[in-house]
């Protein structure tokens, strides 16, 4: 059951991610990206992270991508002027990326077990406390400082968006 769902979500995610980068129309790209995000949310549920799954849809699909679609439609850019792709980086970087990617795939496939230190939040414990509660109790105690930092970061983002996109002053 779980494996079936994983395969379905995973396959759709990969297929639509592929469509994101090959489709010529930015609106279509954006919609396929949303589909990918949706599948990822499904995978998060499989991984017992319901809260993150809901956030994934609310924040990514519901806010970030709406902004994208909005801008794409506002600019009415249409299709790319010319067909054909090209590498914008030097070849050396491309080679580094390819090597790194192959290494990554190789080592993941060869990976035998999880080596990291285990934490206290087993699936059982999280189900007992509730995913959202457990998440909150970690976020608001151990990671209080990052939580505060993020507010400054968002403020900076808001200021920037307003300053840059506003018309004449």
């Amino acid at each position, binding site marked *: 059951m779980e494996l079936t769902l994983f395969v379905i979500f995973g396959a759709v995610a990969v297929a639509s991610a592929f469509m994101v980068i090959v489709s010529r129309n930015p609106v279509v790209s954006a919609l396929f990206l949303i589909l990918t995000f949706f599948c990822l949310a499904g995978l998060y549920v499989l991984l017992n992270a319901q809260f993150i799954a809901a956030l994934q849809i609310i924040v990514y699909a519901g806010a970030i991508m709406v902004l994208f679609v909005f801008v794409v439609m506002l600019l009415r850019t249409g299709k790319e002027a010319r067909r054909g792709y090209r590498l914008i*980086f*030097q070849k*050396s*970087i491309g080679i*580094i990326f390819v090597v*790194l990617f192959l*290494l*990554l795939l*190789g*080592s*993941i496939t*060869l*990976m035998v077990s*999880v*080596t*990291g*230190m*285990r*934490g206290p939040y087993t699936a059982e414990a999280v189900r007992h*406390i*509730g995913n959202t*509660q457990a998440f*909150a*109790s970690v976020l*608001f*105690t*151990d*990671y*209080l*400082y*990052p939580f505060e*930092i*993020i507010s*400054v*970061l968002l*403020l*900076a*983002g808001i*200021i*920037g968006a307003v*300053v*840059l996109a506003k018309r004449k*002053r």
Partner: protein
Amino acid sequence: MPIPLPTVNLIDISPEIILGVFGVLVLLIDLFLRRERKGHLAVLSLIGVVGAFYASLRLWGSSHYAFSQSIVVDNLSLFFNGIFLLGTALVILMSVSYIRREGINLGEYYSLLLFSTLGMLIISSGNDLIILFLGLELVSIPLYILSGFARTNLKSNEAALKYLLLGVFATAFLLYGIALVYGSTGSIKLPMIAKLLSDTAVSSNPLLFIGMGMLIIGFGFKVALVPFHMWTPDVYEGAPTSVTAFMSVGVKAAGFAALLRVLLTALDKLQFSWVSILVVLAILTMTVGNVIALVQTNIKRLLAYSSIAHAGYLLLGLVAGSRLGVSSILFYLVVYALMNLGAFAVVILVGRKGDQNLHLNDYAGLGYRYPLMGAAMSIFLFSLAGIPPTAGFVAKFYIFSAAVKEGFVKLAIIGVLNSALSLFYYLRIMVIMYMREPEKKEVLPILFSPGLVIALLIAVLGVLYLGILPSRVLDLATSAIRTFLSG
């Protein structure tokens, strides 16, 4: 479910709080100021910077974790705070007249500058990968905006876009690296990672090494190491000059602060593997930066490539990884901040509205028309090249000797050769300043605004002082790492 709130000691982050409060204060007061009087905000921001500096001084000597080990308050982080705040103060002084000339004197400018500095302070005290990541983002996001601050200038827009796209691209790599390190060790706290690495099952996990590689790529983009440097010249050229100055000093120093923490605290046990990567990167960075700088004709592009080369020199200290290496990085960053910001101050003085007058030929004859400014520029250029009575020489000397002491003799020789190479393009500017007649006769006089003059004075005096009597700051740098490498 009740959540037991942790005890927090706000004194530990008082510099950060002061900067954040002043950033918001600037925004609020901005609402009540007319366009001509935005200069007052610079004074307010300076007060904030000085306040944060004072708060950092008060914390000097402490060495402990805070916020559930999220941050570490030690002399190293406070020394870095000093570097960042010094750089920011100079940039604010340089900005006042510049942004008025360019017509971008909005209150948000100072506010974003302060937020970016806040990000740097956060990085300097980061003790876990989340903090380091968020700090880097908090440094970067205001800078994306600031590079595009001249909204009607297409070059500035493009610079912002380039910086943003490559910055976020780098962020993705950085994050992937963090994810793999987290996944293979099970922790994101730097000291904890170091402890877990003593387990061979963990330290032989290939994912860990790939994660480390991705981290280096991510940081490489942020501090502009070759071959991840391709954005630097365009962004430095397109962004408003004061912002370029801030980027060239602040981001570089912040990136190195983060690299120091990650590589020397968390991944210390993997030194055997990252040293060889960094050696290659250092050689590439120094050589490519210097060689391409030779053929530049735009002063901002030239300084961009020069800053790439300097990142290469800094890597030598990291490769050494010893106490001497780290303290020489600290010293080098202080010196680099002073000399580079000084050079950019001169670039701002010579420049004209709309970022005109940036060609090297525009510097012809300046040495005679403005002897004091010419002398200052010469001092900065000598220092950047690393010629004796200036601070640049001392800094390079220490960093190269740290490399030699750890057995990287060939690397140090390559560094010295590169310094010699860099002499050509630095001296070329001086030759143009003193030996060539200006092409156009009617040149607008340079307006010396008080802020810029003060900034220039501080930079000149600093470079000369550190060149002649470096021991005070060197001692400070040595004491800054007392608890860093032993704990």
